[in-house]
């Protein structure tokens, strides 16, 4: 485990999490959540959990983002907070 890479990706994970919470557009939330899941996948391959990493890449970053985008298009992009 390379700690510089680990720390950089962990910082990016926190930044994307806060961004996904605060952005005033639900499509933006969906896209930032996809980026969050992909960074999470990188973090797991750094930790040596390769099986968890590729499950997260397909299921977390792939299917979850599709679900979110689908739900946003079936409902609305507008949000107050």
């Amino acid at each position, binding site marked *: *485990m390379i700690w510089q890479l680990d720390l950089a990706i962990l910082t990016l994970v926190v930044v994307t999490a806060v961004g996904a919470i605060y952005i005033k557009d639900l499509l933006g939330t969906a896209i930032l*959540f996809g980026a*969050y899941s992909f960074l999470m996948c990188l973090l797991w391959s750094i930790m040596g959990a390769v*099986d968890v990493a590729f499950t997260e890449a397909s299921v977390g970053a792939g299917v*979850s983002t599709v679900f979110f985008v*689908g739900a946003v298009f079936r409902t609305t992009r507008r949000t107050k907070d």
Partner: protein
Amino acid sequence: MTQLLSEILTKYNYWIYITLMMIGLYAMIAKNNLVKKIVGMNIFQTAIILFYVSIGSKKGGTIPIIKHDHGAASHVVHAAEYINPLPHVLMLTAIVVSVATLGVALALAIKIYHRYQSLEEDEILAQIREK
């Protein structure tokens, strides 16, 4: 003081996991939009999964696939050289469960939107109180 500081800095990953978990908890409690609450729930879940996987990782360990697999029966397997795979397997189940939860939660949110024409919690509650 310096000892406390080094104690904090060497365990920096745990502090960031707790930060992520609190971001998720804040979003679940304080946000008004249902989709943002669902995003917060997912962030909370991934923070816990991250914590469990990081328990299993060790310094200098390799990924948990046995080396020299052909004729592995004649080799002695040194378990200390490999990263502990037990948390990985448990958390694999948790990821699948979290996606199933996400699907159900989004389906409920779509149903609520079609009935009340809004995803905001306060507007939905106001409409319920009017009836």
